[in-house]
């Protein structure tokens, strides 16, 4: 149960995954991508529904814009199908405070170090405020060995959620 309103975004480090402390599906994704050195292969298919993908474009204070939200991803379950498929502008999470607080993890991942951490915060959405706790893994991937393209894959696991 959530007991505090103070936002927490803390890095646990991927050692926690190696020690078996992370969510099993998140761990499976991490191990699969580490074994391919961050290169996309067939093994990514089974993880796609749980991922959100964003570019490597870090501008301003927020994380890069999102282009893909998996059908069973934590972001889709939090923000909804309509948000995930919106058109007309860059796709970003609807809470500016969350955007700002989560950016550090993307910066770490884009510097070449997979980011694994825990977050507990209040989300201010149109329908009200939600208190949420989640673990999150952010990795930078490349579509092929010879590609100069890279993108971020976000795997979030909601541990607790309470509507205020």
């Amino acid at each position: 149960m959530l007991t505090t309103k103070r936002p927490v975004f803390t890095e646990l480090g991927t050692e926690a995954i190696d020690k078996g402390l992370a969510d099993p599906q998140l761990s499976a994704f991490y191990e699969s991508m580490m074994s391919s050195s961050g290169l996309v292969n067939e093994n990514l298919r089974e993880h796609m529904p749980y991922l959100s993908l964003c570019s490597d474009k870090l501008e301003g204070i927020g994380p890069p814009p999102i282009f893909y939200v998996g059908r069973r991803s934590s972001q889709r379950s939090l923000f909804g199908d309509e948000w995930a498929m919106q058109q007309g502008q860059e796709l970003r999470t609807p809470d500016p405070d969350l955007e700002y607080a989560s950016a550090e993890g993307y910066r770490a991942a884009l510097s070449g170090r997979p980011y694994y951490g825990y977050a507990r915060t209040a989300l201010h959405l149109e329908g009200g405020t939600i208190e949420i706790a989640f673990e999150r893994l952010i990795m930078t991937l490349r579509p092929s060995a010879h590609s100069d393209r890279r993108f971020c894959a976000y795997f979030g696991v909601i541990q607790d959620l309470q509507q205020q």
Partner: protein
Amino acid sequence: MQTPPFIPQSAYFHEHVQPGDRRLKKLKAEVDRHNLTEMWDMILTLDYQVASAHELSHETKEEFYGIIELLLKAFVKE
């Protein structure tokens, strides 16, 4: 009487199909131009499990186009 122009069968597109194909062609050209072809292929093969966007149903195609439009916005500086 004037002879009507010859139009080969392959040049015929049903009026309801043509706009979608135009959108596909336009998006693919944009993706290629911005060096995002591998990302296009990755989403098609890993998520939709097809080799070409032509294999997608109408409804799925619309969803795929939406993702590609977000892809372009996410990577291309405006």
